């Protein structure tokens, strides 16, 4: 089967610091890949290389059969990679609905001249966006849908994360990147997150998900394909049981002494 995303020997250097060192991996359609690793291991850098925020110093990124290495972010989104951020980056002074509609930017096309001289078409486009956004919000959570006219900045933590995912889904992605979605959550909220992602997978079997995660409970829920990164290098890959028992992974998390004690 053809891989949806293929990263080959991606290297990212910032001056003397090697944030990513020849990392290679691939993910097929409908798969979930969990990326784990200690803080500062290069997981977020990996996301930034895939989404075009950084141009890798060396190596290649192929998505859906096209080389997208170093393509600007907005093009990468248009090709079908959506993402969320580690710290919530909602447009907090805009309404929940507007946040989702902005997510549809690459799927709408009115330009300045169109907006000025064809107001009818522009209005119809926005009306269609509102309808689609409401469907997305309803599917995400009834609670979020009820609050759709409130500023996004007033939402509670769990709803903020749901809105981030809904906004990313609005761009109709083939691949969704979730950067530590469980950060700052308690057990109940984490369970809800796991349920959300599982539901997403049943609703959209074609959607691939890459998940950066620290919380092993979340990783355990999606155990098929796990990759561990440390000091910018891939140190283990496989299913969760295999990665967990890898001595280098244990070393990265617990330190040399603990493993050999």
């Amino acid at each position: 089967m053809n891989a949806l995303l293929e990263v080959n020997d991606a290297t990212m250097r910032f001056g003397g610091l090697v944030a990513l060192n020849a990392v290679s991996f691939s993910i097929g359609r409908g798969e979930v890949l969990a990326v784990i690793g200690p803080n500062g291991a290069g997981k977020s850098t990996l996301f930034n290389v895939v989404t075009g925020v950084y141009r890798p110093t060396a190596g290649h990124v192929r998505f859906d059969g096209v080389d997208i290495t170093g393509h600007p972010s907005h093009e990468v989104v248009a090709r079908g990679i959506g993402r969320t951020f580690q710290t919530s980056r909602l447009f907090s002074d805009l309404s929940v609905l507007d946040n989702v509609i902005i997510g549809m930017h690459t799927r709408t096309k009115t330009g300045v001249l169109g907006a000025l001289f064809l107001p009818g078409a522009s209005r119809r486009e926005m009306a269609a966006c509102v309808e689609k956004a409401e469907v997305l919000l309803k599917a995400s959570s009834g609670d979020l849908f009820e609050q759709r006219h409130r500023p996004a900045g007033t939402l509670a933590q769990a709803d903020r994360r749901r809105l981030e995912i809904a906004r990313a889904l609005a761009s109709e992605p083939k691949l969704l990147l979730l950067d530590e979605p469980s950060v700052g959550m308690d057990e109940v909220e984490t369970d809800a997150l796991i349920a959300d992602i599982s539901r997403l997978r049943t609703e959209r079997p074609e959607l691939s998900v890459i998940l950066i995660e620290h919380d092993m409970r979340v990783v355990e829920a999606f155990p098929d394909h796990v990759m561990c990164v440390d000091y910018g290098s891939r140190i283990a890959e496989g299913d969760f049981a295999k990665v967990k028992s890898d001595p280098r992974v244990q070393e990265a998390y617990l330190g040399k002494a603990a493993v050999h004690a």
Partner: protein
Amino acid sequence: MSTRASSEMPGLGQAAAVVVGIQLLGAAFLYLILKAEGGLEVVGLLALLAAGFYLLEKRPQITDFVMASFSRTPVVALVTAVVVVVLFPFAVGNNTYVLHLLIVAQLYAVLALALNFQLGSANIPNFATGASYGIGAYVSALLAINFGLSFWLTLPAAAIAATLFGFLIGIPSMRTRDTYLALVTIAFGVVVQQLLNNFDWTGGPNGLVGIPAPSLFGHSFASPLVVFGWKLPSQANFYYLSALLVVVAIVTAHRLHSSRIGLAWNALRADEIAARAQGINVAWFKVLAFAVDAFLAAFAGTIYAFYVSYISPDNFTFLVSVTIMTMVIVGGMDNIFGVIVGAFLLTILPEKLRAFSDYRLLFFGIVIIGFLMIRPQGLFPQRIRSYGESR
């Protein structure tokens, strides 16, 4: 529809009454402050205005109710507005000074709406709006004087020239932001003014003299306007012309704001990195904001040049850009109505405060600070989009 909102929904008749009443009240206030002579009168009116805004700040329901009334009866609102604007010069009569103030206020309203695309929608601090305004004025004046082009032809020509200038400032600005971006635009503004000052073909510091008055269907704008036996001074021609331009600016602003363009600008105002992750080409949308700003500013510049028939670099200084920026901030960022109110207030106020002679600027500063203390978000802050559904 939530129960809270439905209980506040005004009835049809009530809404129409509110809409007409509010607009007449606004017009009456404008009339009074334009006619006010002594310092005491002006201070009294300002105190009244301040009290009004204090009430709005304490009771936000009032704003919601008025807004609901307007969206309930859009036709009544529009007709009233047109009637008020058309009849206003008749109320003013032969007072050319008041008409002059109104024309300048309307041109500033257009400039402030132009800048609002950047400062209000996208949070781009552009200090070069004055320069775009100047380029519009000079291009049209030069075309009219040297090539005898009519006003109506110079209007689009000036707009195109200024839009190109907008792209020109926009391109280096793509790589900078915030303070650095502000510095780049200040530099552009100063460079343009210095060039106008030093070129021979722009008349240097003496500027351009003898810009011919426009005419329409054989009626010269320099001659008095006669309507059904009523004779209005020649300024009335330009009053209606600039009112028309304000309408164009409002329609432009409204259409862009309610399209995906306005949303994209708002997104990059809130968080540039997140905006990029939604597929917004941030650099392009910034340049676009510069171009739209310059386009509208050039229209205002053209009308100004033909109205006063004499322009010099002193009309388009850095201070003009700062004034326009203050209008947007005081009026309310990203609120079309607020920006217009800001422009009128800041045009009329300094004139009326002449009564305080030497303390005029001091008093002006105090008034602005006072209003911003009552309404820190600007007189009319931005509102959440509603998409025309009842809620």
